[in-house]
């Protein structure tokens, strides 16, 4: 099956902890993204990587760091979570030449 896979589906943690989310795509795409969807359902881009190179880095707090081992994987680490980080984190991928985005199912983070 070719798609975008995210783990975990849900994660509950406490303020100050570190969390990591994984994303893998088997579509052969060369670009991957992390988007954040807040409680009002607004989607905003956080990062994009093209062939393991960072090409978009929005004004995201420094505690967020993306990690790409190859063009099929893009993980997201949050060093010390804060309450406002509670959201759904959506990974996506596309071809650079035609940016139709394919999304994973998302990781819902709850920070207590």
């Amino acid at each position: 099956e070719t798609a975008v896979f995210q783990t975990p589906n849900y994660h509950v943690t406490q303020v100050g902890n570190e969390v990591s989310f994984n994303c893998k795509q088997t579509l052969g795409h060369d670009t991957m993204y992390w988007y954040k969807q807040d409680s009002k359902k607004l989607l905003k881009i956080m990062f994009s990587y093209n062939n393991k190179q960072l090409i978009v880095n929005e004004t995201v707090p420094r505690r967020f760091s993306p990690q790409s081992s190859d063009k099929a994987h893009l993980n997201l680490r949050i060093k010390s979570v804060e309450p406002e980080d509670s959201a759904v984190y959506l990974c996506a991928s596309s071809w650079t030449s035609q940016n139709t985005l394919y999304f994973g199912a998302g990781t819902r983070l709850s920070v207590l």
Partner: protein
Amino acid sequence: GDQVEQSPSALSLHEGTGSALRCNFTTTMRAVQWFQQNSRGSLINLFYLASGTKENGRLKSTFNSKESYSTLHIRDAQLEDSGTYFCAAEADTGANTGKLTFGHGTILRVHP
């Protein structure tokens, strides 16, 4: 202000009827995409348009770059069409970053 203004914010349709969603852009966009987010939270890509009109089953979408808008028409609505619809557009900055700006979404409810 927002670069992508989506309307309506909510829409209620009887099964079998139709309507249109619209996104207006305050800057020149190179392409637009439409997504449906279902009850499980998955974002499904419906259309990618760089210009013109595309049709897929009961859905039709148009993108007019010159007049800075895009529409999504739904006809013969079915219960499974319920969900949140997003438009997302890529600014025409010269650099192909794939960075999408999302509208705030239209919550569609189809009822019997």
